[in-house]
C-alpha cells in the first residue's frame, strides 16, 4: 500500500465503524495454499478474532494477484484493501481496535522484536523448506501452488515462484544452509519463544497481543500441516509450553466461537492439535 494511500486510509478508517461484510482473501484452502501463506492467513484471522472483529474468509485461486502487495492474506473492509499482518494491525488500530495499548514502551519494543524474530526465522524457514528443499518442492509446493492453472502456465508460474524465493534466500545468506541447519534455526527460534513465554498464558501476561496471534498462526499451521516428513512439527512439539499455548488459543478463539456462532463462512476447518 502506498504511503499517501495509507495516510488517507487511516484518516477515513477512524471515521467508519467495522463493517459486517469485511472479507479476508486467501488462496484455496484445500488444494492450493502453502504452509507459509496458510500460517500468515491464520495469524491475521486470529488477530481479528482477538480484536472481536468479524471477518468472512474467502478462498480465491488468484488471491496472490489480487493483493495490493502481492502477498496473502489481505482484507477488504469497506472501501479499503489492506494486506499482511503489520499493516492490518495499524489499520485496525486506526479504527480504534488495538491489543497492545496496555503495554509499556519496553514491552512494546520487545513485542515488535519478537514479531520480527518470527518473520525473520520461522517464516523464512517455512519458505526455505517449501521451495529450496527439492523433495518438498516437487512433492508438495509446485503441484499445489500451480493447481488452479492448466499446462503450461502451471509449470511456468511454479518455477517462477521457486526461482524468486531461491534468489531471496541467496540474498539473505540462507542458500548455503542445509536442511538440517534450517531445522536447527527453527528449533532455536522456538526455544527463544518458549523462554519468553515461560508459564504465562500469553506472551505479555494475561492479555493477548498481535505477537500471540502471529506465533499461534505459525506454530499451529506447522503442527497441523502434513509435509513430506514431520521433522518440522517435531521441533515445535518438543516445547510443551508452546503446545499448550496453541491449545489455549485454539480453544478460546476458534472452538468457542464456533459453538457460539454457527456461521459456516468463517469456520476454521483445520485438524485439531495432537
Amino acid at each position, binding site marked *: 500500500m502506498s504511503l499517501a494511500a495509507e495516510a488517507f486510509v487511516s484518516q477515513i478508517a477512524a471515521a467508519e465503524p467495522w463493517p459486517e461484510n469485511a472479507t479476508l482473501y486467501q488462496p484455496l484452502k484445500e488444494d492450493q495454499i502453502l504452509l507459509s501463506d496458510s500460517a500468515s492467513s491464520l495469524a491475521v484471522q486470529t488477530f481479528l478474532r482477538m480484536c472481536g472483529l468479524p471477518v468472512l474468509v474467502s478462498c480465491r485461486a488468484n488471491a496472490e494477484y489480487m493483493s495490493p502487495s502481492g502477498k496473502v492474506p489481505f482484507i477488504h473492509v469497506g472501501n479499503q484493501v489492506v494486506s499482511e499482518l503489520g499493516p492490518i494491525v495499524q489499520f485496525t488500530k486506526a479504527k480504534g481496535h488495538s491489543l497492545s495499548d496496555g503495554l509499556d514502551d*519496553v514491552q512494546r519494543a520487545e513485542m515488535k*522484536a519478537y514479531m520480527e524474530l518470527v518473520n525473520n526465522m520461522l517464516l523464512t524457514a517455512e519458505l526455505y523448506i517449501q521451495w529450496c528443499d527439492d523433495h518438498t518442492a516437487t512433492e508438495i509446493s509446485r503441484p499445489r501452488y500451480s493447481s488452479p492453472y492448466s499446462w503450461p502456465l502451471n509449470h511456468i508460474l511454479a518455477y517462477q515462484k521457486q526461482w524468486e524465493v531461491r534468489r531471496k534466500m*541467496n540474498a539473505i545468506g540462507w542458500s548455503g544452509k542445509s536442511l538440517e541447519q534450517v531445522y536447527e534455526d527453527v528449533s532455536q527460534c522456538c526455544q527463544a519463544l518458549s*523462554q519468553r513465554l515461560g508459564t504465562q498464558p500469553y506472551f505479555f501476561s494475561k492479555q493477548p497481543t498481535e505477537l500471540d496471534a502471529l506465533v499461534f498462526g505459525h506454530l499451529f499451521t506447522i503442527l497441523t500441516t502434513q509435509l513430506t516428513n514431520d521433522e518440522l512439527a517435531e521441533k515445535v512439539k518438543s516445547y510443551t509450553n508452546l503446545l499448550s499455548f496453541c491449545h489455549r488459543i485454539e480453544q478460546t478463539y476458534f472452538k468457542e466461537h464456533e459453538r457460539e456462532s454457527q456461521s459456516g463462512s468463517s469456520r476454521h476447518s483445520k485438524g485439531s492439535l495432537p
Partner: protein
Amino acid sequence: MAAPLELFCWKGDYGLPSVDVDCLTVLAYAKFAGAPLKVHKITNPWRSPTGTLPALKTREEGSISQPSKIIIHLRKQKYNADYDLSAKEGADTLAFVSLLEEKLLPALIYTLWIDSKNYVDVTRRWYAENISFPLNFLLPNRMHCQQLEKLRLVRGDPVLEPGEQLEKELYRDAFECMTLLSQRLGSQKFFFGDSPSSLDAYVFAHLAPLLKIKLPNGKLQQHLTSLNNLQQYCTNILALYFPSDAREAPGRKTHAQPDSSDLDNEPHKRRNQVLSVLFAVGAMLGYAILTGIVSIKRERPQLKNSGHDDGDEEDED
C-alpha cells in the same frame, strides 16, 4: 598456545574501526569477548580468503565470512560475550537482532548505497579512493548493484525503484526500530546491564556508521542524534573499546578538511595523467589501426585465400 586467528575486514575511517556493518559487528564482538584476533584491515576484498569481507581464517573449518557464523565460531573457542546472559536474555538477543535485520538494515543499505546523493558523494567516493587502482573503477559499482539487488529481494519487489516513496517506507520502519531500541536500552549502559553482549555488537555496528559517517542526506542520522541515549551508547562503546580509532578521528577530521582538497587533487591529478596518457596512446593506436586496417585488409584476402584454398582443397578432396 596456538597463533591467534586472523580476521580480514574493511579498513576504518571517520573514527570507526571499520566502515562496513558486518565487519564492525565482528570487530565489536571480538573486543567484547576479549578474543585475541590478528586483524588485517584491507581495502581489497579479493585479498580475503573467501573473496568477501569480513572473513575469519580458522584452522578446522577453513575460512568463514558470515558474521553470525564467525560469532558462533568464536563462541566455540570459549570467547563468549553472552556467558552471563539468562535464557530469556538469550531469546531477547535473537529477537532484537531480527528486528535490526528486518527494519534497520534495509534503510541503512538504502541510505549508504542507493540514495544517489549519499552514494555518489560519500560511499562511492570513499571506496573509489581507498580501493587500489584497477579495482576502484569496478568494485564500488558492483557493490552498488549487489546492494540494490539485495534490497529488491528482501522487500519482495522485483521492480523496486529508488525514490521518495521507497525512502519514506524504509525510513519509517528504521525510525520506529531506533525508537524501540532506545526505549529498550533506557538508561542502561549496555542492553543487558553492565557488560556488553553479542546484541550490543549488532546494535553498535548498525548505528555507529550512521552516527559517524557524514552524509549529505542525513535523515536517519538526525533521528539517531535525537535519541540521546543511543547516541551516548555508541560514543561510549567507541571510546571504551576502540580508543585508538576514536581518538584518531577528530584529529584526522580537522586535518582532513584542508588536506582533503590536496589529497583529492593528488590522486585525481595522477588519474588524469594516467587517463591522458591512455587517451593519447589510444588515439595513436586508433590512427595506426585506421591506417593499418588498409594494410590488414590487404593481407586478409591473402589469409582468406589461404583459408579458401584449404576449404577448396577439402572440397576437392
